[in-house]
């Protein structure tokens, strides 16, 4: 498996293989094909950043452009899922969830429970997340905690191309509604990815670096910032263990607790706003279930409690940095009971 592809290509390949394998898999979204109704090229866009480019040519019946009506088409994906299809709907930016959240959290997420178990809603909602694109306050949010909060939803946020492909295929095969979060600043990131179709199970975190002095729990882009911090810390003799959650719901607390039991220290890194986020979630669960193992306070590294600023200099300060993560690790290492 020497072939390297980008996370963007991994998404494309996963969709391609899933559609080829199962005709009930259909993709829908704004300009995911492009050029509809016009006199120029069809497949003119392949999504706003070209992620789905080329899929229309291969699966013309399974690729649908939509009007600019997220409530209607995300809801339609959900309704179709309840009627035997396996739709993959693209919500271009997760920031747009505010115009269609009801369909996701009150409908898709609750059907099975409200209907006494007699419903399946195998829908996937793909969306771009995260800051660093100079896209300002309404196109740069993480918002994963809002979805992880909701019982009935599954939430996935991969950090690399390999996980992306395996988790996206799993999301499509999964019978529950899945929010699949793609970090726009990781699309170009490459790694080795098998050509054949494969899945990665939900609820299995990945230890991307082993270490014994402190555990970092994180996901998405922050995995890479944490790796950078770990490299700096290693030079200081501090060996950090990094847990990449991969799926935020379900959550692999076993791996987290095991790691913290080993290292005795924890830093939670989250690109989401600080209040009620994934970092507080992990911290709280560790403090409840592995308090005895903790040698010092748990540190959290998050952006400040502000919207995402536009100006590149401000945005760079907004996003948690490797330096901030390293500082947090040093702090908990200095801390004690």
């Amino acid at each position, binding site marked *: 498996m020497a072939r390297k592809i980008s996370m963007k290509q991994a998404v494309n390949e996963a969709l391609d293989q899933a559609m080829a394998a199962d005709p009930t898999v259909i993709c829908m979204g704004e300009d995911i094909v492009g050029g509809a109704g016009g006199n120029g090229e069809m497949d003119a866009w392949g999504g706003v950043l070209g992620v789905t480019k080329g899929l229309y040519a291969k699966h013309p019946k399974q690729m649908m452009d939509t009007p600019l009506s997220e409530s209607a088409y995300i809801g*339609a994906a959900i309704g*179709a899922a309840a009627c035997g299809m396996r739709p993959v709907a693209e919500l271009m930016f997760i920031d747009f969830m505010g115009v269609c959240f009801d369909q996701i959290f009150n409908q898709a997420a609750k059907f099975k429970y409200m*209907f006494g178990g007699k419903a399946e809603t195998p829908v996937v909602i793909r969306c771009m997340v995260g800051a660093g694109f100079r896209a300002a306050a309404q196109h740069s949010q993480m918002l994963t905690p809002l979805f992880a909060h909701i019982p009935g939803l599954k939430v996935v946020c991969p950090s690399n191309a390999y996980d992306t492909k395996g988790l996206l295929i799993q999301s499509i095969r999964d019978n529950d509604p899945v929010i699949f979060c793609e970090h726009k600043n990781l699309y170009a990131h490459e790694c080795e990815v098998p050509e054949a179709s494969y899945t990665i199970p939900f609820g299995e975190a990945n230890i991307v670096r082993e270490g014994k002095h402190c555990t970092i729990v994180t996901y998405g882009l922050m995995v890479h910032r944490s790796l950078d911090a770990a490299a700096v810390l290693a030079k200081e003799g501090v060996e950090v263990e990094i847990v990449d959650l991969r799926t935020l719901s379900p959550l692999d607390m076993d791996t987290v607790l095991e790691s913290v039991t080993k290292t005795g220290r924890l830093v939670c890194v989250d690109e989401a706003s600080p209040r009620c986020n994934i970092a507080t979630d992990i911290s709280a669960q560790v403090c409840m279930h592995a308090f005895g193992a903790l040698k010092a306070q748990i540190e959290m590294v998050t952006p400040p409690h502000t919207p995402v600023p536009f100006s590149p200099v401000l945005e760079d300060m907004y996003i948690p940095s490797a330096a901030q993560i390293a500082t947090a690790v040093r702090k908990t290492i200095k801390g004690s009971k």
Partner: protein
Amino acid sequence: MQVQNPFPLSRDELLTVYRQMRTIREFEERLHIDFGRGDIPGFVHLYAGEEATAAGIMHHLNDGDRIASTHRGHGHCIAKGVDVVGMMKEIYGKKGGSCNGKGGSMHIADLSRGMMGANGILGAGGPLICGAALAAKYRNKGEVGICFFGDGASNQGTILESMNLAGVWNLPVIFVVENNGYAESTSRDYGTAVDSYVDRAAGFGLPGVTVDGTDFFAVHEAAGAVIKRAREGGGPSLLECKMVRYFGHFEGDAQTYRAPGELDDIRANHNCLKILGDQLTAAGIISQSELTKIDEEVMVLIEHSVKEAKAAPFPTLADLTTDVYINY
């Protein structure tokens, strides 16, 4: 002497329709009484008075046809073939109810009958039924989707977006406005800026038609045409059914927003069941005693359903955390 049947339905079908409408009526009248007694928990929105619309539309549908219902969903459920005893158990919050007690009045669903759920969120059925219709298009068996919504919900963005989406994708969907003149206590004329739903539909490129929703045959005919059109690939349309609601918005509503005498007039002159009964007996193809016999049988069924519901066990702690995910 053989009487000619002037109706587009056979005698048996007519009896079935009458029974269905009477079942809805008795179901609701009984809930009204039992709610008043404190037997029934939660918010309960009754469909009584509106039966002809549910029956007139659903007569054209099979289990493969999907409907998205509203907070006022009992009538849709019964007309779509959901089991009445299961429904009653559900409303009582019991095990063995349509949703095992987890959904209640506002969330009764039975996907096996094509009933995609009553819904506590106004307008939420619009997008969902577009999805059902999209799936039908892929299956290509001529199935349709029906989206019920009230005059109030007609102003929800979800419904409006869905009309456009259905047009863009040419989906086999019928948007049925159940116009009972009120959204909670607010008059339709206050909340909806346009006089005619046919104009509203035209704003999305959809053909629209308005009928007297208390006249079973009027609804049946109009629905038949738009459903046929949708089955044949002709695309979406809108059907406005003008109707009346007998009880308050929900149980407990004193309806002081109605004009004096309004309710009396409704019950006396706009009783869709009486209208249908009169039509059938006047045509001479069904006798009053046959109808009375059905009425009595329905009473027995409803009484039975209440007994069953009261006797059924409640769910237990083990049920609390099941059915959230298929696996997690």
